[in-house]
């Protein structure tokens, strides 16, 4: 469903992505792991066209993003949901308004139906009845849940998660992991998540890829990742300071 070929991107002469090749099959959850600042979020933003590569292509269902005009790109994005690392909820809107905004702006759905969908999505993420609050009134975990409700409001085919559990306590993070698994079962979406939280990666992934110094150094199933003899992945999974990965 998603094909990334030769993706290359630099910032101020620092090469962040170096000829990355990666695929995400329909219905699978691909988790990209890597160290902080290795380019995981940059990779994710290329998938939805928020960033343009210096070289290489991103293809979604046979459509190359670099060959689309702006209107076509906006239409394609309606098939996506994106959970930003900090949530990126709109401060001036209530949580319910946040969740319903895409429906309001992009569809002819009636206000009543939008309210029903919003209430349903908030219930899915455990925020039932809290739609009239503003994001500033929520804790970090609640903001993540609200942002997740917004990401799935339009019944997306593809969901992108940028560090879904970063900054959350272990219990709240596990709650988010459970939520992502349940949504995968409920919505049957294709998902790409980037994280450095291995517990989260092992829980939600069908396949795991490791990004290091701009390149994919491992792809495989969760079982293959656990049993790998790839020294970088082993060191990363174990969280050890001794190995080919030098502490930052």
């Amino acid at each position: 469903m998603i094909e990334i070929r030769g993706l290359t991107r630099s910032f101020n002469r620092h090469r962040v992505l170096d000829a990355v090749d990666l695929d995400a099959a329909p219905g699978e959850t691909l988790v990209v792991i890597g160290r902080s600042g290795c380019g995981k979020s940059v990779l994710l933003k290329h998938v939805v066209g928020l960033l343009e590569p210096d070289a290489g292509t991103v293809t979604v269902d046979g459509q190359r993003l670099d060959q689309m005009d702006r209107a076509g790109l906006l239409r394609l994005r309606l098939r996506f949901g994106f959970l930003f690392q900090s949530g990126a909820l709109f401060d001036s809107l209530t949580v319910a308004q946040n969740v319903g905004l895409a429906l309001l702006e992009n569809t002819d759905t009636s206000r009543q139906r939008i309210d029903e969908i919003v209430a349903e999505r908030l219930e899915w993420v455990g925020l039932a009845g809290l739609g009239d609050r503003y994001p500033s009134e929520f804790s970090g975990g609640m903001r993540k849940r609200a942002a997740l409700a917004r990401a799935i409001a339009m019944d997306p085919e593809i969901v992108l998660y940028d560090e879904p559990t970063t900054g959350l306590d272990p219990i709240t993070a596990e709650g988010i992991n459970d939520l992502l698994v349940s949504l995968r079962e409920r919505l049957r979406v294709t998902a790409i998540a980037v994280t450095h939280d291995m517990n989260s990666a092992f829980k939600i992934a069908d396949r795991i890829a490791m990004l290091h110094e701009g390149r994919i150094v491992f792809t495989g199933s969760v079982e293959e990742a656990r049993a790998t003899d790839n020294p970088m992945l082993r060191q990363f999974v174990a969280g050890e300071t001794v190995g080919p990965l030098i502490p930052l």
Partner: protein
Amino acid sequence: MRTFITGVGRWLVDSLVYVGGVVAMGARLVGVLPRLFGSFRLTIAQMLAMGVQSLPLVVLVSVFTGAVSTWQAAYQFQDYVPMRYLGGAVGKAILIELGPVLTALVMAGRVGAAIAAELGTMRVTEQIDALEVMGIDPVRYLVLPRVVSGVFMLPVLVLFANFVALMGALVVAVVFVDLSGEVFLNGFKLLFRSKDLYAGLIKAGMFGLIIAMIGCYQGFTTRGGAEGVGRATTGAVVVASVLILISDYLIATFLFQI
């Protein structure tokens, strides 16, 4: 010397990039103009924020604008120009220049800074990216309502400003310059030309466009967290203020043929 030349060169390049960026945003804005009706409630909200909520400040500034104009004109007129022309001179100054320009400069500080701060914060917290990913054109959703509001509301504010400034001028003329109100108003009517009023409102429309566009562009191009938002806010006020003064001159040379 080499450092100076390099600095000038870099400033020139940065300025060209800036102008190009604003023009590009303007081109996108023209492209989404047909969808203005769909952004109606957003535009109304901006008009309220930009216009109605700015009124107290505009009134306060305008009172003193009119007051000081009368006092300083009277000071310059004494012994040289008959005071019966005071109302006309002050009226022309207010309608043609002081009303539109001072109102615009005040609004650049209030509205331009607020726009840049709001959009800059949205940029650094990925809210603008979120709009993009939700299939919502940020230029249509954020910039269009603000620009339309600026173009329409600044002339409205200038109308209020002109009226209040003239009232402030009248009060000072009567109370402190010892000129009768009738003489002041007759002088105003003697030299009043409707072109002066329209030219001032045309200026105001252009200034509103500048304030909103620069504020939006600074916000959209914010980088670097809270510090970046601060820079964007300052930049919005400074750039808009300079462009207001430059465009004031250009519009004047076009509208007022000598």
